[in-house]
């Protein structure tokens, strides 16, 4: 089919056709479930009301979702995780004559679908936490948007790192983890608007409502804008890397 991108088709087949696509994400789900259990309200409702200290279950779950999905994404971007019968990105670039833009477009759509699938797997846990967490749908929606854009960012980080140094296993292994660690550790101190835990806390718990650390735009919008810009930059970088890769690859024809 001319209209259908093969990379997207691969992802769809991998997600829906095999019945085992979730297994790579299962450990993340278990972690999230542990977080929900640990942050489940221990005392009775009266304690929460009279002490004005409601449970933080939803906030903990959103932060756990963001962190685990970021870890999953950076590994998936580095192709430590591939769906059944899914070809690596390098192979698409080297072994097929498809235009790079088409490959990159299909890759991006595929990673988006895969990320949404992972978020979908976490949804029952999120709704369980939501029931006692005292959130509102609008805030949860924004939280999910920040989780999504962050995971896309880390996925592309993994892809860029792997494309650049993928043939060095240990370098890739440590590099992607280091990037994730630095990203999570540095952002709260250097630029809080780019810290997912901080923005989630702002969305779900702030009182009185905070405006922003810079200017008057809401924090979550700054977060989304910041990571959107980074995603675009990473796509450009990835495109350049793939183009270089294709140019130095031996001619298969």
């Amino acid at each position, binding site marked *: 089919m001319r209209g259908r991108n093969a990379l997207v088709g691969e992802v769809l087949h991998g997600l*829906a056709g*095999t*019945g*085992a696509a*979730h*297994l*790579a994400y*299962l*450990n*993340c*789900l*278990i972690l999230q*479930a*542990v977080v929900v*259990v640990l942050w489940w309200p221990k005392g009775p409702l*009266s304690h929460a*009301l*009279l*002490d*004005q*200290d*409601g449970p933080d279950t939803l906030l903990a779950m959103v*932060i756990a979702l963001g*962190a*685990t999905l970021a*870890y999953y994404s950076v*590994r998936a971007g580095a192709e*430590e*995780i*591939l769906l059944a019968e*899914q*070809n690596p990105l*390098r*192979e698409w670039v080297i*072994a097929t004559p498809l235009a790079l833009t088409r490959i990159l477009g299909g890759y991006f759509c595929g990673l988006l679908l895969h990320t949404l699938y992972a978020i*979908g*797997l976490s*949804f*029952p846990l999120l*709704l*369980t936490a939501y*029931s*006692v967490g*005292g959130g*509102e749908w609008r805030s949860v929606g924004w939280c999910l948007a920040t989780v999504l854009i962050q995971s896309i960012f880390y996925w592309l980080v993994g892809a860029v790192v792997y494309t650049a140094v*993928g043939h060095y*296993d240990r370098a890739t292994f440590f590099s992607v983890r280091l990037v994730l660690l630095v990203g999570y550790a540095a952002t*709260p101190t250097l630029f*809080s608007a780019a*810290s997912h*835990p*901080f923005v989630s806390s*702002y969305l779900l718990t702030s*009182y*009185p*409502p*905070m405006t*922003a*650390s810079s200017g008057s735009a809401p*924090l979550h919008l700054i977060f989304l804008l910041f990571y959107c810009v980074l995603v675009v930059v990473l796509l450009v970088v990835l495109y350049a890397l793939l183009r270089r890769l294709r140019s130095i690859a031996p001619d298969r024809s």
Partner: protein
Amino acid sequence: MIQKLPLDGLRPGLHVSSKSTPTRLLQGLILLTSLGAAEHLSSSPVRHARALEAVTAHSAGKLNIQATVGFSNTFKLGRWAPLTVTVENRGDDLVGELEVRTTHGDELQGNLSTTSHRRSLELARDSRKKIRFTVFLEGFSRPVVVRVTSGGQVLARQSIELRHRFSEGLLVLVLSRDADLDYLNASDGKGVRVLYPHPELLPDHWRGYDGVSAVVVHGVSLEQLSTRQHQAIDKWLAQGGVLVVSGGPNYSLLRSPRLAELLPATPVGLVQLLNGATVSETFGSPLNAPRPFSINRLSGVRGQVTHRAGDIPLVVQEKRGRGRVTYFTFDVASYPFDRWLGMKQLWLSAFDLSGVEHVTASSSEAREDEVIPMIIRGTGRGFPGYGILFSFLALYLGMLATGHRLRPVSRTGRRLLRRLTLVTPLIFAPAAYYLFGPVLFPRGPNAVVISVIDPFAKSAYARLELELGLYSSQRGSVRFEYEGLEAGFRPTPSASDSKDSVNWIVHEGARRALQVNDPRPYVLHLLKGQDIITHEVRASAEQTKTGLRLRLRNNTGRPLEMAWLAFNGFVYALGPVPESSGPDNVFVIEQAAFRLQDHSWEGALSESKRLSARERYAAETVLEQKVRAALEADTLGPAEALLVGLAASPLRLAGVSASWSRRMVSLVLLRVPVQLRPSGAKAKKVHDART
């Protein structure tokens, strides 16, 4: 599970075990960075000044606000006071909102908060409207701000400084055209302070008279008052107000319907006294009256004559509910009483000013033994338990982990299995939403409403004391809409001693609502309110050989679901009391349900089918607290009993609040006079049913 696809040897297989590295919640880091993050919340001085400029520009020539607070711009701190706002529109037709904002709390203690009274405002071009509010004025450090807004924009604004307007004295309102009672003003400012408000500016709610000690009517009729204003005076009088009416030659004013209904006697003519001798003798103060003077001649005296000149009543008093009406049958502002030295003492006696400040019943201090926190403490765990949580998570993760291992024989089964893990979240997500939501832990706002109704003796009115607890399990501003009352609510600090200040919005008008400007979930907002309602319950009892005989008239229009009589340390169950528009209900009581000293009210409502378990617990807790408090505080005499009844709540949830989860308990507490058997007659011992 890791997939690797070495293609053409281009990439070596990459095997990395998917070890998950749990990340730790960086709450401490979040807190640290949040302290350094967005801090500019309130207006900076420059921005505030610019906003004021903009407001002034808007208001200049288009909207004019004039506001008066209290009576003749005088009020008492720590009391409710009337506030009248006149808005004049010289611009285009206006549809907006009028807001009056008062400030409470202490800035130094960090618990400053505001209450905004809001009313919708529609004002045509070149028109004027007068709107009345009743506001609680706690202190004078911050001004009262009056604003007109439309579409989020402030169109006009006025600040009312309070520093120079409050009075420490006892306010006496004089409704008169020509009476001059300034001689009653205390020189130190702490005694009586006489004010002369225009009747048009009188409050239209009884709470507006909260700071008023007495009202004097001289030479004016109450017919000029609106229905609401008249009802406000009537209710204020019933709850303990003091009304003094002066007679005079123009007694036809006293025969106007509203005054005639209030007076303890009817003036039917005039009688002349030749001199002041008999008056001097009655009051014990010489009255210099060389010429004859007139006194109202009375008929149909219903009250008590406290002073008379011979057989001519001079002062007649009558109790109305908890208040009192005093009728001077002479003109206090004319010869010879206008210059009489004894008049001051007579006034003070009529005002019944003991010199002791009445404490506003609406206390703002929360106590650990408040009823609503007790009810909430007793409602069990509330949250879904760990058992159901574990089971749900185990089932979900178990299905995901093991579903793919199934090996169906049929092709259809294998095809369905592939879809199973896709469908599993779609099944478990709504299941989680409903199981941990409406089934086990309904979300949304909750209200606990405790009402105590205290009917006044010989009055159709009753005092209503309300305790309101609002909380929500979801983030978002809580808006509590109600009907049936115009109670003045004031927030009380929560029992947790939290110093977080919360701002309130009071929506007045057709649909009354309370809105808290605090989106946090799991915060219990406590308020107290008062109102005077129409609620007539009359009872009397007599002691018989075998027990008590109680006559009870319930004119409230609704039955009492359950009633008890507490007398001499015992509680007697009366059962349901129907509404009686006809003859009184008569109860013959011989057997006590329990002894107050030995038993609590737990189980008193076990037979009620209407109440749920939660409502029963709430009602029994309220009975326990309120009845004991009433018996301890009011110290019933040996010839008095306390009628306790469970009634329908006069406050009804409406609008968006109609679907809230709620617990509402309404108690009627009425003192009942008991006619005791003559001493010497032996009464049969009353048996305690539980002994």
